């Protein structure tokens, strides 16, 4: 979860109506409706099958339609396992591979675990949790399931009688209830006879997964001091003893995502890098947490949650410059896996007994397929080919440029050349800045498709990996702490200068854009420079104080700021210095500010403040509101509308 201020990676999917043989035309917005997205691919224990969630968008009903599919690794034959089940997700094979569990909604719209016999027969509910479940895991012998469910509010009766006032502690300004922790339960054959394992005011972290120790006597998870989403730097990799429910910690604050190896002898988890707290290192320790070794420090890349492969080696994905790579820990250091042109962005690998590994990957021209790396194979095998049609469109080439900052930090960026690029021609350019800031831009097909659509319009697109990006190493992140905007702002301007050297950029038509921390950088650009023709400023961190006060993860903001602005005067000064809001009077750029009405991450009020300020500055500014909750619209129509307006805004402003 280092993507907090990034685009909320949405569960996109599309109705695949794409005819196979159509004359290739530049990519259009409507083409993106055909995208099929894969998530959570799971190898069967023997490695012969992959179960995955295959999602298309239903644009008529305006919701994603996920389905469970199973793919034969040998033949690539794919079949649907579920028919019209509500919001299926999280397939997990039973340890023997005879059953497949998944999550779907019951008649009360609560998420429950269902188990599908793989020798035929209908799925049966395995849980009947009153408040629904969030995550689950098979026990080592496949006889039980551990799951996490929210506690019932102690004042449930009063709430039902409308007496629902609540205490605010860590919640965001959008809160509608008290902070309620989630805890671990265990259920056997009878869904109604679940037993609670853990208790307390602490909670299972919102980002946690559950992992049984192979002896069945412990369950590893990520612990949070309360039930809030405010987890950054507060979590601890932990395990609960079965059946006592006693909780033990593997390690201290900031650790998360513990996983046992197949023998149950070791545990791997993520912990804060020593130089940069926001970079995740992999730490391997004995099964009780003793003798931890920071095996990730030498890789110097921010790891995604680790897994163990059949040989007992740790496998991870991590951003590396403009690529998302897979790595395996061999001989004490991480070696890249042979993924070729496939990016593994923010994935957790599924591994099988036979040594194979599966994930959903992305390439420059293909937004999503399921890939398997067979044991000892020198390249990946694509198990699906659902988005092949995109490769038939003429697309802009996505190139990586790299440079070193004056203070010696290696930086890079993705430059997308316009379709039909002609080196002799002059092109307008749009900056499309990633969020996080601990995210990264990679050469893979963008999740919104915006750079691809812009290239189809004949523009250069620049996606800088500025300081703070999590694909550049700890020093980059470390040097951004306490000045996350000003230093990144310099990096971004360097990237613009570099592109201007290498390409004929129409300097009268440079646009700047981004969402979340990308919006923050956009706001920073327009408050510190007037070269921009137009700006698209989505859910921008204009006021760090807002993010650190009324947002749902103050803890993340406080790390960037270097303290709690409410009890640390220096941190408050940083908050003010690094907030674009402070410099509102400088803005001249034509700006479209965009926010969800109920954004708890980068609080909606921030956008209203910036809008009023820019208006007072006399800047041509508009504020567009999406009437939805969350940090980014999650429904297909609004999501598509964002992409449409993003591109149209520059089309409109690039007309001379």
């Amino acid at each position, binding site marked *: 979860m280092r993507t907090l201020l990034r685009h909320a990676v949405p569960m996109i999917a599309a109705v695949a109506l794409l005819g196979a043989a159509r004359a290739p035309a530049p990519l259009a917005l409507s083409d993106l409706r055909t995208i099929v997205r894969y998530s959570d691919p799971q190898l069967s224990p023997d490695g012969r099958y992959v179960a995955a969630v295959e999602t298309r968008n239903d644009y008529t009903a305006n919701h994603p339609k996920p389905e469970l599919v199973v793919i034969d690794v040998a033949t690539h034959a794919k079949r649907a396992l579920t028919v019209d089940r509500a919001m299926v997700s999280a397939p997990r094979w039973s340890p023997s591979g005879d059953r497949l569990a998944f999550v779907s909604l019951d008649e009360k719209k609560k998420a429950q675990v269902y188990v599908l016999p793989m020798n035929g027969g209908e799925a049966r509910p395995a849980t009947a949790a009153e408040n629904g479940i969030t995550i689950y895991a098979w026990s080592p012998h496949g006889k039980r399931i551990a799951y996490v469910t929210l506690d019932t509010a102690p004042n449930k009766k009063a709430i039902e009688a409308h007496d629902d*006032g609540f205490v605010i502690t860590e919640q965001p300004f959008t809160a509608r209830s008290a902070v309620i922790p989630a805890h671990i339960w265990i259920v056997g054959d009878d869904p109604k006879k679940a037993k609670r394992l853990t208790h307390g005011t602490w909670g299972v972290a919102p980002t946690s997964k559950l992992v049984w120790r192979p002896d069945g006597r412990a369950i590893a998870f990520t612990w949070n001091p309360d039930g809030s989403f405010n987890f950054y730097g507060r979590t601890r990799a932990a395990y609960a003893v079965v059946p006592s429910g006693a909780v033990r910690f593997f390690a201290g604050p900031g650790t998360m995502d513990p996983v046992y190896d197949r023998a149950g002898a070791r545990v791997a988890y993520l912990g804060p890098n020593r130089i940069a707290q926001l970079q995740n290192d992999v730490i391997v320790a004995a099964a009780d947490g003793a003798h931890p070794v920071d095996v990730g420090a030498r890789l110097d890349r921010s790891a995604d949650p680790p897994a163990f492969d059949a040989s007992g080696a740790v496998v991870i994905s991590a951003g590396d410059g403009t690529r998302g790579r897979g790595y395996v820990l061999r001989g004490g250091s991480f070696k890249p896996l042979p993924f070729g042109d496939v990016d593994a962005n923010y994935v957790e690998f599924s591994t099988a007994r036979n040594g194979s590994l599966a994930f959903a990957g992305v390439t420059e021209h293909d937004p999503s397929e399921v890939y398997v790396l067979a044991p000892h194979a020198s390249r990946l095998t694509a198990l699906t080919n659902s988005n092949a049609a995109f490769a038939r469109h003429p697309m802009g080439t996505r190139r990586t440029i790299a440079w070193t900052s004056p203070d010696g930090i290696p930086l890079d960026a993705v430059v997308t050349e316009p379709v039909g690029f002609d080196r002799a021609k002059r092109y307008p350019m749009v900056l499309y800045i990633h969020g996080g800031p601990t995210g990264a831009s990679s050469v893979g097909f963008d999740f919104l498709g915006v750079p691809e659509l812009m290239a189809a319009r004949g523009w250069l697109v620049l996606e800088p990996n500025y300081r703070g990006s999590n694909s550049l190493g700890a020093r980059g992140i470390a040097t951004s702490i306490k000045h996350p905007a000003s230093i990144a702002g310099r990096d971004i301007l360097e990237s613009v200068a570099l592109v201007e050297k290498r390409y004929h950029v129409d300097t009268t038509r440079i646009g700047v854009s981004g969402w979340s921390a990308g919006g923050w950088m956009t706001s920073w650009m327009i408050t510190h420079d007037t070269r921009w023709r137009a700006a698209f400023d989505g859910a921008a961190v204009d006021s760090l104080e807002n993010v650190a006060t*009324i947002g749902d993860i103050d803890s993340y903001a406080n790390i960037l700021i270097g303290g709690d602005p409410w009890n640390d005067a220096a941190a408050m000064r940083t908050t003010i210095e690094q907030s674009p809001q402070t410099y509102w009077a400088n803005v001249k750029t034509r700006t479209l500010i965009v926010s969800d009405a109920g954004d708890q991450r980068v609080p909606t009020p921030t956008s209203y*403040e910036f809008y009023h300020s820019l208006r007072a500055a006399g800047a041509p500014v508009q504020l567009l509101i999406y009437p939805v909750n969350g940090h980014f619209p999650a429904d297909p129509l609004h999501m598509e509308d964002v992409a449409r307006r993003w591109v149209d805004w520059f089309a409109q402003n690039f007309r001379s």
Partner: protein
Amino acid sequence: MNGVRASAATRAAACASAVACLSLPVAAPAAAPVTATPSPAAATLKPLTFEALRNLAGIEDAQIAPDGTRVAYVRTHGDYKADERATEIELVDVANGSVRALTHDRHGISEIRWSPNGDRLAFLASPERDKPPEIFVLPMDGGDALQVTSVKAGVSDFAWRPDGGGFAFAARDLPKPPKPKGYVPAFYVTDEHYLTREETVPVAVWTVQADGSKPKRLTTGKASVADYFSELQYTPDGKTIVATMGPDALLAHLSKAQTDRIDVVSGAMVPIANGPDTGGTLSHDGTKIALSWPRHGSAFLQHDVSVRSLAGGAEIVSGKGIDRNVAWTRWAPDDKALYVGAHDGVRSVMWRLAADGSSQRVDLGDVDVAEPVSIASNGTMAFVGVSRTDPGDIYVVRGGGAPQQLTHENAWLSGYALAKREAITWQSDGLTVDGVLTYPIGFKPGRTYPLVLNIHGGPVSTSTWDFNRYDSGLVQVLAAHGYLVLEPNYRGSDNAGDAFLQAIVPHVASGPGRDNLRGVQAVEAMGIIDRSRIGVGGWSGGGLQTSWLVGHAHFWRAAVSGAGVDNWFEQAVLSDINEEFTSTFLGGATPWTKTGKQFFDEESPLTYASHIATPLLILSDIGDQRVPITQSFELYRALHDNGKTVEFMAWPREGHFPSDPVARESIMKAWAGWFERWLK
């Protein structure tokens, strides 16, 4: 044209007619004891509790029949099981006081209006629970009520056509039908509040036949009925509708509203006068209108009466001499005098403004006038009367005599001990400030008691001594728990004239802060306070003062800051009343200059958070569009993260204060509970 007029004051709308924007709504499940005098044998009476207060009946919208024989009114009470404000229409006979209910099981009744000849009674009600209101017509010679309109977004106001054959009504436009169902497209905002979830669309004037046929949208474009100010009215010839129109539907633009003449055929709108106004009352003959005229151009400050010619807009009579903030106006049947309601001292009273501009306060003895009066053609005047012991009943005045109480809707209160309340005054910065002092039950001279300040919001509002104000229940319960309660009418209150009101500009927090501290000193001088046990609380503008006071004095032992303005900058850019409101009270300052921003900060309680040592309870609605909860978060973090004693409670409700009885009671309990915890 008969004398029936809509009463803007009964609307739970945004900034009621008095534009007390940052205040608790007045008249909620308020209530009324039958017996006007508490029994002297106080020992035999029970102490008032929040549970007992569930019995309160609220009386609203008194409407006398054109012939003066009956008065219809809305009776409300809290349905704590369904958690809604239950409403019914009751009818009281002026001759014998007999009461009967006219409606059964209807939701959300408001705006009851007699037909011109009194044969029917029209009202607004929700066809089903939680649905927006529509016009219903009840035949008064028997029969079910007929639903006249079917406007999906609901009717916000209406008026009978003078011939009784139809209505003018105001209804919000509907956004384009969403496709797919429930999908709301993205939209642009300007001065909308930060919780806005759909595009702002105008409230248009419509006409419709009495049987519901031929609905016709009369006004076009962005202009929108400012229904928080004024009601629709017809001229006697039925050819013109008078309505107060804003340039758009944004509450932030309320100071730009003007009352217009609207041609019923063409829909053409012509402003009556040459400046912004906040609504008015048309004379019976339709030749003149008593406009509510903002003395300083802002809808947020004092309003005077200005009687204008309907045709040319020229001023005929000025009511400036009354020098109180006009809450409502009603014409005498002969149009020769105008009744003007306003706060005065700690009471809600009325004046009679004569054609020559002279005015006289109408003597109603102990009875105060909670809402616009309703006057029959024979001169009989009906109104909701309140007093220190009566939360509200129907009173009539005939032939200029003393008010006669017709109903006894809160007879149950006679079994409870009610606290003694009196007005006190003190000096502050050369101003004479008053307030209501409530004595603890069983008060004995010579002993000392803990004191709690209960500070009103607005700031342009007034703490009155009657039982009608919503928080009177809280004050009575605190008195039952043994507290003295002081409700100061600090500068900016609208009970003492324009100069006193205007004295709040621009020092919107610091000026009243001094007044309130001196109010404590004034009670101290009476020798009745236990000085180690003084608390302070308030909602909205009262929350602002509470946050301010605990940052400027350390003797407070407990404080409750509800929906407080703690940060004027956020108030300016996030609230539905927006930048104009803040700049009005901060003397024209904006946060867009260095000195302006500095002044915003100087008058913001948050700036002084590090001085706060008092245990503070912060309260707010999550969906408060008036005083955004973001400010409460800031104050909370500023205290909590520095180890101060602070708790923050919120209610998952929309609006500036919950409208449902359970949440209201729950807030009052938390409020009183905090004082019990720290002052006992």
